[in-house]
């Protein structure tokens, strides 16, 4: 990472870097609203100064690098709202494992970023604390649900931010904001301290401008954790040789049948141009068949709300956050959950509760889990013919604020290219691959076999060595 190297070389000091990041947030975040909470300036500068006073031999790989966290990850002493009124005022008394590792590597966490409430949404408009705006066009959404983290990186407020991806919530905002966003393989990063949405799908992933920096961030936060039993065994280390290996000898799987209906023409043109770039650099291509993504969408909108309805049962006014007064316990539950949860969260709890309720379980939840098996098998077949699958990340560039918020189904369709990845537990990366005539970022998504995080990063890094889309900055934000 360029900034980490300059810090290490002593050409810039951690306090200077933190000052500059806070200044850029002060200058831009009034427009963008990427942050829900910033840590105290004095406290941050003290943290930077402690690093300056420490011997360089003790510096971790991210020493002095400013970072931001999606506000659904616990950091001791900082608020954690999940974008919801129901957690207003809550300050967790512990650190998420990913947060602990990031800090142990020397990163200076400036604050917490905006999100769709409990990570449910694709535009960050479902935040109870107001929407985030896209740094490329303030009239448009940054995507979601990790829209604040994506916008903070795109607007050059921080070089690294963490998000969580349950159905596309890192990749889609990365796509709409023109930055790199990685959803690691399921189990790669501990979810201890990440507020659970859909436990069989959730995964923490990094945003950065370059794939190389995202890879470095992953190497810091990845690895098994005794506090999360779903973590894969084995460390994940950044393999420099693999990252730099280029695309020669790799086969890109292209699901031609998924590139028709609903795909924006400029997205489609950029996708084909990216294929040319990669095949020009020595990659082979193969046409692969994948299931119609509307099946993944359908399975997702049963599995995710079902798990959410169970996970969000804990928000009842007893242990933390909001409590609405009531004469009896049931009344307290009902009124706390009614005023604490926003409309999309209530909607998904309702869908999930219905899908799990007596008489409907087999027809909905069990059926969706069986379809999940079909989706996994579908990818296994595709990966017999290729090393990675390539797709657009989002069917369209960033849309206008307010455009889709009143129609849940049309909002859900934003994630048509990203959902299947979570259902199958694959790693996938989004990188910017061009700009629309209106100046909005376009995106390429690279999907790998389960566990092959290094391979998707390799292809993404090779793509960035061949192109300079990731170097472009939104006007007034460089």
């Amino acid at each position, binding site marked *: 990472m360029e900034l980490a190297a300059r810090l290490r070389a002593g050409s810039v000091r951690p306090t200077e870097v933190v000052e500059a990041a806070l200044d850029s947030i002060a200058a831009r975040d009034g427009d963008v609203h990427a942050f829900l909470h910033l840590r105290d300036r004095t406290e941050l500068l003290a943290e930077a100064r402690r690093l300056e006073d420490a011997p360089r031999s003790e510096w971790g790989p991210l020493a002095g690098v400013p970072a931001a966290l999606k506000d659904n990850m616990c950091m001791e002493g900082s608020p954690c709202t999940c974008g919801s009124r129901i957690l207003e005022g809550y300050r967790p008394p512990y650190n998420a494992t990913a947060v602990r590792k990031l800090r142990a590597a020397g990163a200076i966490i400036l604050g917490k970023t905006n999100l769709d409430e409990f990570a449910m949404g694709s535009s960050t408009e479902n935040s109870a604390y107001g929407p985030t705006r896209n740094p490329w066009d303030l009239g448009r959404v940054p995507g979601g649900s990790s829209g604040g983290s994506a916008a903070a990186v795109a607007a050059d407020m921080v070089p690294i931010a963490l998000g969580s991806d349950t159905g596309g919530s890192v990749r889609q905002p990365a796509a709409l904001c023109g930055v790199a966003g990685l959803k690691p393989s399921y189990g790669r990063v501990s979810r201890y301290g990440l507020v659970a949405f859909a436990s069989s799908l959730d995964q923490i992933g990094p945003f950065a401008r370059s794939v190389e920096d995202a890879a470095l961030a992953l190497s810091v936060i990845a690895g098994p954790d005794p506090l999360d039993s779903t973590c894969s065994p084995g460390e994940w280390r950044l393999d420099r040789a693999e990252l730099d290996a280029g695309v020669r000898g790799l086969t890109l799987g292209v699901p031609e049948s998924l590139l028709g209906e609903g795909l924006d023409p400029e997205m489609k043109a950029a996708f084909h141009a990216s294929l040319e770039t990669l095949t020009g650099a020595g990659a082979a291509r193969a046409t692969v068949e994948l299931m119609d993504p509307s099946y993944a969408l359908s399975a997702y909108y049963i599995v995710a709300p079902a798990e959410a309805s169970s996970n969000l049962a804990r928000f009842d006014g007893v242990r*933390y956050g909001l409590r609405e007064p009531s004469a009896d316990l049931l009344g307290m539950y009902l009124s706390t959950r009614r005023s604490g949860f926003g409309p999309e969260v209530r909607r998904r709890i309702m869908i999930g509760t219905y899908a799990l309720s007596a008489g409907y379980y087999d027809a909905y939840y069990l059926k969706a889990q069986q379809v999940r098996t079909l989706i996994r098998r579908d990818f296994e077949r595709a990966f017999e013919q290729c090393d990675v699958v390539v797709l657009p990340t989002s069917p369209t560039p960033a849309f206008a604020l307010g455009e889709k918020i009143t129609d849940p189904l049309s909002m859900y369709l934003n994630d048509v290219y990203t959902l299947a990845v979570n259902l199958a537990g694959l790693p996938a990366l989004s990188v910017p691959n061009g700009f629309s005539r209106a100046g909005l970022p376009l995106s390429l998504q690279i999907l790998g076999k389960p566990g092959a995080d290094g391979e998707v990063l390799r292809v993404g890094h090779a793509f960035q060595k061949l192109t300079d889309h990731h170097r472009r900055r939104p006007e007034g934000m460089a």
Partner: protein
Amino acid sequence: MKLTADDIRHVARLARIELDRPDTEKYLEELGRILGYVDKLSQLDTQGVPPTTAVGASELPRREDEPRACLATETLLSGAPARREGHFRVPRVVE
């Protein structure tokens, strides 16, 4: 499967979410449309297909059951809306 207003009220009760009449009608319409969409799963033949309940590690790791340090009661109660004598305090449950 056609949703009814009774279904919506039943589900809301299970989910511990209070509804008023306009909510019931709104959810009836919205959930009806979403469930109508996801009904396309019935087009897929899943006879004999095992469900995927989890991806990734097939076996959960085990460890020795040894006592370890944990957060103090006082710390854990620090976010509670109401507390008394080291416990969460809640409204009356039984008359």
